[in-house]
């Protein structure tokens, strides 16, 4: 009796909702039915493949027998996918460095934690991460950077890319609005030139063209060159977004700051940028997210980032043919990172409002 009542009231609530949201009108009803059918065709087989029939810790041979997903390709090659050619016995070092980085990032999410101590914490943390990766002192065996790869490399390129590109972009945006012709011209040329070429061509230039101009004997590490290309590229896009924010600030704000006698740097730092940067949080995060994904382009200059190490496992004859599993895994890692970033930007925007 009671249960029947509950059932009835549940139906009473769900039916109007269905009618209002999914079946209001003939056209919408057709779309709903078609979509439901498509989902029915896609979802159950996917679940069967990915979970029910899947193998997680088997050999390659066992995978060939089954007809589900072969996640074993990931588990069996996990350490290569994550760490690339970093010496097997020393892989705890990049692991620790990554944990440190993620830990610092998570801690820094809370704006109440932003203070001098945290700043020094970051300096110390970054120094320690570099030490872990490179070694060479304190009894840590040295590992040359051409052995670095996988997730730590991707995280490094992305992290330093964003951290350095953002201030550079702000400076370029200010330069573009400068009254000094030389600075203005340089900023405009820089921004337009960089935005006129694809990142790939910048990466090629950094790896092939750039070394030709260096004096003989001087070489700059390949990772650093790729890193520079990413920073220079991202900064141009940040600059344009920040310029938009600066333009949105009323002239009266500049005048009020001037009339108090604030110097130009003070005016920018205390009055104009806090307001302008707040406005451009959403588009800036968009740019940072694409910069993060674009780090995967470094494969073309033969750096072993996460995407490249994952792909490499597929060239092992044993594991050939399991690309859906591998690419889904990589996509998941990228998705989690990007989702976290855009989530955080939304939170920050709300807090600053």
């Amino acid at each position, binding site marked *: 009796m009671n249960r029947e009542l509950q059932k009835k009231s549940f139906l009473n609530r769900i039916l109007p909702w269905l009618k209002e949201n999914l079946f209001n009108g003939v056209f919408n009803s057709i779309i709903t039915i078609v979509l439901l059918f498509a989902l029915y065709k896609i979802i159950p087989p996917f679940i069967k493949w990915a979970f029910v029939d899947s193998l997680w810790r088997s050999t390659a041979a066992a995978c060939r027998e089954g007809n589900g997903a072969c996640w074993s390709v990931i588990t069996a090659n996990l350490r290569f996918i994550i760490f690339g050619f970093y010496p097997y016995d020393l892989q705890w070092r990049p692991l620790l460095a990554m944990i440190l980085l993620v830990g610092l990032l998570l801690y820094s999410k809370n704006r109440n934690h932003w203070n001098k101590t945290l700043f020094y914490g970051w300096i110390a943390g970054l120094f320690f991460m570099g030490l872990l990766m490179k070694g060479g002192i304190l009894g840590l065996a040295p590992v040359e950077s051409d052995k670095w790869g996988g997730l730590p490399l991707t995280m490094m390129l992305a992290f330093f890319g964003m951290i350095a590109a953002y201030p550079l972009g702000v400076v370029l945006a200010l330069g573009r609005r400068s009254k000094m012709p030389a600075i203005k011209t340089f900023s405009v040329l820089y921004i337009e030139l960089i935005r006129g070429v694809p990142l790939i061509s910048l990466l090629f230039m950094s790896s092939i063209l750039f070394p030709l101009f260096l004096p003989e004997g001087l070489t700059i590490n390949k990772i650093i060159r790729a890193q520079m290309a990413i920073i220079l590229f991202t900064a141009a896009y940040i600059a344009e977004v920040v310029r938009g924010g600066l333009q949105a600030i009323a002239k009266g704000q500049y005048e009020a700051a001037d009339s108090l*006698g604030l110097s130009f740097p003070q005016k920018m730092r205390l009055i104009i940028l806090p307001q302008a940067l707040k406005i451009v949080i959403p588009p800036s995060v968009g740019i940072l997210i694409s910069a993060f994904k674009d780090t995967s382009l470094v494969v073309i200059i033969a750096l072993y980032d996460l995407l490249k190490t994952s792909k490499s496992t597929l060239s092992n004859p044993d594991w050939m043919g399991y690309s859906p599993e591998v690419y889904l895994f990589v996509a998941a890692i990228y998705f989690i990172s990007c989702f976290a970033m855009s989530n955080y930007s939304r939170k920050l925007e709300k807090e600053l409002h």
Partner: protein
Amino acid sequence: MTNETTTDIHRDSQDKIIEITGLHKWFGELHVLQDINLTVYKGERIVICGPSGSGKSTLIRCINRLEEHQKGRIIVDGTELSNNIKNIEKIRAEVGMVFQHFNLFPHLSILENLTLGPIWVRKTPQKEAEETAMFYLEKVHIAEQALKYPGQLSGGQQQRVAIARSLCMKPKIMLFDEPTSALDPEMVKEVLDVMINLAEDGMTMLVVSHEMGFAKSVAHRVLFVDYGKIVEENTPHQFFDNPQHDRTKLFLSQILH
């Protein structure tokens, strides 16, 4: 207070605080200010009026270099305005400015709006800057709003905060550019009262305004500006009751209706 207060002002040469001689300014082709000569003495209060577009704002904005002049000299508190950025910043710190649209900093609280200048320009310790800020907020009757943000206040309240923000810099001169013309009528009085108090404290003030009552009660001189020139200059009572020039008469007949 009447025009007799004019006699309070010491018109010795060492008491000059603003000296403008042969000032010209162009906006492109437009000759906005044409041969302006004006000397302001310490403690003097001047009201500037004139038709829209005549150059009143431009004139007072030249005094703290929000606008650059092309010809003539402007000496403020003994320092000549030139391209020297240090001199400009020094003068700006001594000259407060109140705008028609308040121009408070929306991302800072009222208290932070007031302490920003003293802390960063005057290098006042934060605690002292906050005490000064609270003193002036009391003076403009708005101390209880100290922790709010500008967007939460009414226009009249915002303008009073703007005045207090300038006062926190302990300026020697205050410039007002139509401080009440963006306000609803019922808020005009609260702002004018604050300005009258300021006048009674002996502040040197240049006020662009058409508020005749205000001019009559505090001004030593009224200037009438038209087409970039100072057409007429007189004590407020003479100016309003017995204007000399035809253009002044025409203008007054328009604003008094």
